[in-house]
């Protein structure tokens, strides 16, 4: 919460991207979240990521449900399309929008409440249907808007601000996504933009459903001693296994990667993700191994971060499976969209 708006004044030597825009031109309205909220850092990472891949603001559709997390769509890329849906129903809206217009880039922002409680079924089916979108869960383990009750992602043993201990087992969105066949699964931390920004860029470019679970501490209700989702605890139990570098299409790879330590995955549009293994034994393309690895680490209270699983060879992508229109509905001629009563009669006659 701030009393003044972020001034329009910018650093005089701010760089511009291929569209001639500065990072500042990818910002949105002033955040009204608590000072120090992890979500604001995620917002800044999205701004940076969209600017970095030269995304046209009007080419982006941002969708959200209800919750602190779901407010954040207002805070980035003011020039994008947006839809703030009913609590937990953002995946349905996103599915519909994607089906109607596959040319836009879709980003859904949700929280652990919106996605893992009220919208759990919605999320599961969006993953299963492999909607072509980036889905970010800003995961802080509490219901911030209703003053800090445990959410469905709260770990066993974590303490609430007033001292009560959580005994209910959590839902882990990464394990959920892996088990439902998601083709891009990542975890990151709001306090590590170096890791988060390329993940968002790769997620936006991934053909299919991309999930990034971002540990995003609630500075007001879940940043105390005993919490397993505080800034301090997250930093202490933070275990990056795979760092991803995003290389846009037709750019040269300028960084030297050590033999055997790096793995290049080409995305649908020709851009590449270079995966740097920090843990040599880890293979991000092996889903079941990834599942096993994450599960083991969770038992040791470790947050495995990075691009946990990627599969660019999947054929289950929503548009392919459902043969959705290549031309967005808003560009189809009226006669084709609404062929009239005669065509309807003809169609119905087929089932008589």
């Amino acid at each position: 919460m701030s009393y003044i708006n972020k001034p329009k004044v910018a650093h005089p030597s701010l760089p511009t991207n291929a569209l001639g825009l500065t990072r500042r031109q990818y910002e949105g309205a002033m955040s009204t979240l608590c000072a120090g909220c992890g979500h604001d850092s995620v917002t800044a990472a999205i701004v940076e990521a969209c600017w970095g891949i030269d995304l046209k603001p009007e080419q982006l559709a941002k969708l959200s449900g209800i919750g602190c997390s779901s407010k954040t769509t207002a805070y980035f890329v003011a020039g994008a399309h947006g839809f703030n849906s009913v609590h937990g129903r953002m995946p349905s809206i996103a599915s519909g929008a994607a089906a109607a217009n596959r040319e836009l880039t879709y980003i859904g922002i949700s929280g652990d409440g919106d996605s893992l409680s009220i919208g759990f079924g919605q999320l599961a089916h969006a993953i299963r249907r492999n909607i072509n979108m980036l889905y970010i869960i800003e995961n802080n383990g509490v219901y911030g808007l209703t003053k800090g009750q445990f959410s469905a992602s709260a770990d066993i043993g974590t303490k609430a601000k007033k001292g009560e201990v959580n005994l209910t087992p959590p839902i882990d969105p990464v394990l959920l996504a892996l088990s439902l066949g998601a083709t891009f699964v990542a975890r990151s931390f709001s306090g590590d933009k170096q890791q988060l920004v390329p993940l968002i860029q790769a997620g936006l470019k991934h053909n299919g459903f991309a999930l990034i679970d971002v540990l995003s501490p609630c500075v007001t209700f879940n940043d105390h001693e005993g919490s397993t989702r505080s800034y301090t605890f997250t930093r202490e139990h933070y275990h990056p296994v795979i760092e991803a570098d995003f290389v846009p299409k037709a750019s040269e790879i300028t960084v030297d990667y050590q033999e055997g330590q790096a793995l290049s995955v080409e995305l649908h549009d020709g851009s590449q993700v270079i995966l740097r293994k920090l843990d040599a034994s880890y293979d991000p393309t092996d889903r079941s191994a990834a599942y096993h690895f994450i599960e083991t680490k969770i038992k040791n209270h470790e947050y495995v971060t990075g691009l946990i699983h990627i599969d660019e060879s999947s054929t289950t992508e929503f548009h392919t499976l459902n043969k959705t229109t290549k031309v967005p509905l808003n560009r189809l001629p009226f006669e084709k969209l609404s062929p009239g009563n005669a065509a309807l009669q003809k169609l119905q006659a087929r089932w008589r």
Partner: protein
Amino acid sequence: MEPTQTAEPDYFHKVVDCQWACPAHTDVPEYIRLIAQGEFTEAYLVNRATNVFPGILGRVCDRPCEPACRRGRIEDKPVAICRLKRVAADHRDEVAQRLPRAPAKKNGKKIACIGAGPASLTVANDLLPLGYEVTIFEQFGVPGGLMRTNIPAFRLPVQVLDEEIGYIVSMGADLRLNSPVNSLRKLLDSREFDAVFVGSGAPKGKELELPGRRDTDRIHIGISWLESVAFGHIERIGERVLIIGVGNTAMDCCRTSLRLGAKDVQVMARKPREFFKASAWELEDAEQETVKIVVNHAPKSFVVKDGKLTGMMFDKLEYDIENGEIKATRELGEEFFPCDDVILAIGQENAFPWIERDIGVELDRWNVPKVDKVTFQSTRPEVFFGGDAAFGPKNIIWSVEHGHQAAISIHKFCQGEPVTARMPRGVTLTSRKMGMHEWSYKNEYNGAERRLVPHVALVERFKKVNIEVELGFTAEQAALEVQRCLNCDMQTVFTAKLCIECDACIDICPVDCLTITPNGTEGELRARLKAPATNPQQALYVSAALPQTARVMVKDEDVCVHCGLCAERCPTAAWDMQKSTIKIPHAIDEDATCRS
């Protein structure tokens, strides 16, 4: 890098670029805020505490503060600091009651000041309240020195001069007009004074000895000519005038000429425009008044026919310039410029024909006195120098600062203390936090462009020699201009141990000043900040190691707009907005320590 030592008074002082650049260290943001609140009298007094002549300087200061202004690095134009000073002076109430007064009981020490210019007047201003008896010797019938004789009345009205000089003289200075000092020996031998301050300026205009120089009486020395105009001895000049030289004196000469009947005035410069010494705004004003500036012409001879000046011959020059340096010069042949009068404005020097060479006041081989740069003491302990007399021509605001420093030395000397044992500068910091995320200063950035000062119409201003050209800001203009000030004295102060590294400050900073990064050398840090810090004149503020990751918070002070959003967004108050007040010691502060 080691953590920045913010307790060091100069650190935050440098962040307040205007105050740091001002020779007298006027607390600019403070008085601009007072103007914003309509507290013109308070704003005037904040000014007077350091620069002594706000009304005068608000019109004719050299404004070293403005090129330094941070606003100029963010947009094109700095805050109109100088013109806001004039607003304070023009709109204030009577201040006589609130000025320092001399005590009834004197301290028994007598000081002589030679010349009644800004330096001597400052010495008197600082020493009279301490009980000193100060005598000022002035060669002319009016005080003010160069401020009166060399600055035309159309830039600085006589009433403003009289009023501000009057404040000092009425404290009880013994001002002896028409009393030139013809022999320093005599003055010292009289044993009448415990210390002598020489503030006699640099009154000798430079000559240009070229063929024909002595064949006519229509060639004038700029500063002497301006002096004669000021005293009404000269009231006319020919229709066509050439001014030689392109400093601020040249600007005053050309504009004065226009007011004395000249129709065609040309300022002749040897070099291209980028090498001009005149302030940009003075050039602008002169050109607006139809003065022509002719570059790349070197004077060759004065052409006199039958005892009458007909013009001047010049060599036309061409230069090869690389990175602001002249690499080669070529002569392209002669060019004749007809004229009726020539004014030489190519510089001035200090001259001391009245200082005997055997009285212990040493002068070097250029006849410049040997003066200590900090204490302003000469080689004879009871003789001090200041203003243009000390190190050659500078400007009024430097003279004032010399006066302050010399006053401290004179006080120390008279009290038997070493003149070098001077109080250091200090800094106090007080938080401006009011509520959760609110600060007791207007932190919102105002994108307004610099206001233009209204001028008297061209046709009106030449009717008399003393019509003040600049009208000063209107109330509306001033109200907007003050909002352009960035409040650079509202410092961002960081407490490393409170930081949880949530990045909130970094994300919100509109000008990308902040970065959390592993520590390194200054060069490494400057290169890896969120926006590279390319201005080495501006410091990096480096924190101690942060508690969670041992990285450091680095702030590039260069383009911070002091909006306070870093502190508003900080959940742990690791960032705080604190007002820095820089304590600049004057003689009265030294006196307090002497007493205690």
